C-alpha cells in the first residue's frame, strides 16, 4: 500500500520554497524596481510561467507514468489555446488602434505615455 515510503516530501518542500521566492521576486519587480514597464511585464510573466511549471511538475506529478501521456498533452495544448486566445485577442482588438478614453490600453501610443508618466 505504501508505494512512496519516503518520509519527507522533499520535492514538495523545494517547490513550495521556490514558489514563495518567485512570488516575492515578482512583487518586488512590479512594485519596487525601476525597470521600464515593458521589461517588468516580461519579467513577471516569465516568473509566472516558471511558477506554473513548478506546480505542474513538482505538485501535480505531470510526468508520472500512471496516466500515460495524457497530462502532458492536455496541459501543453491547453496552454497553446490560452496563449492564442490572449495574444490573438490583444493583437486584433488593441494593437495599432488608439483609444481616447481611459489610460493603460495596450496600443503603442499609450505605452509611450505610460513610460513617460513612470519616469516622472
Amino acid at each position, binding site marked *: 500500500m505504501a508505494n512512496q515510503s519516503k518520509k519527507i516530501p522533499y520535492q514538495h518542500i523545494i517547490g513550495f520554497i521556490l514558489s514563495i521566492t518567485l512570488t516575492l521576486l515578482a512583487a518586488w519587480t512590479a*512594485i519596487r524596481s525601476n525597470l521600464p514597464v515593458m521589461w517588468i511585464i516580461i519579467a513577471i510573466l516569465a516568473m509566472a510561467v516558471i511558477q506554473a511549471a513548478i506546480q505542474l511538475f513538482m505538485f501535480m506529478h505531470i510526468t508520472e507514468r500512471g496516466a500515460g501521456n495524457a497530462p502532458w498533452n492536455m496541459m501543453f495544448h491547453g496552454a497553446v489555446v490560452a496563449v492564442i486566445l490572449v495574444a490573438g485577442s490583444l493583437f486584433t482588438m488593441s494593437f495599432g488602434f488608439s483609444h481616447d478614453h481611459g489610460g493603460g490600453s495596450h496600443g503603442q501610443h499609450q505605452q509611450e505615455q505610460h513610460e513617460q508618466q513612470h519616469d516622472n
Partner: protein
Amino acid sequence: MSTEESNAKPLEYQTEQGEMSIIGFWVFLAAEIALFGTLFATYAVLFGRTADAPAPAELFEPGTVLIMTFILLTSSFTCGIAIHEMRRGSVKGVMTWLIITLALGLSFISLEIYEFIHYAHEGATLQSSAFWSAFFVLAGTHGVHVSLGIGWAILLLIQTAQRGITPITSRKIFIFGLYWHFLDVVWIFIFTGVYLIGMVL
C-alpha cells in the same frame, strides 16, 4: 524523465476505472485552461476601459493580494502533502492535511469577499465599467472554483473518514489534489496578469 519511484503504480491508478478517471480529469483541466484563457483575453482587451469608475492602480493593494497569494500557495503545498500522506497509507495524515488545506482555502475566499466588498464601496462594481466587469468575472470565476473545491473536499473528508483509503477514495482525493493545484496555477496568472500588471500600468 521518471524519478526514483517504485515499480508498482500508486493505489489510485491500479484499477482501470481509476486510471480513466484521472485521464478524464486532465481533459477537464485542459477545458478549464481554455475557459480561463477566454476570461483573461476579455480582461486584457478591456484593460483601461474604466469609464467613470476608479482605475485599477487606485484600488489594488499589494498587501492583501500578497497575503491571498501566500495563503493559496501554502494551501496548494499542504494539499500536495495530503496526497503524499495518502500514498504512504496514512488516513490520519490525509485528513489532517486536507483540513489544513480547507482552512486555508476558506481564509482565501474570505479575503477575496472582503476585497470585493471594499472595491464595491469605492465605486467599482460589476456594472460600473467594462474593465471592472471583466475583472470581477475573471477573479469571481476563480473564487467560485475555490468555493466549489472547498465543498468537494468536505464531502471527500466525510467519505475518507467512513471508508479509509481504498482505490476509490484515493482516486477521488488525488483528483481533488489536481484540481486544487490547478486553481493555484490560475491564481498565479491572476496575481501576475491582473494585480501586478494593474499596479504597474
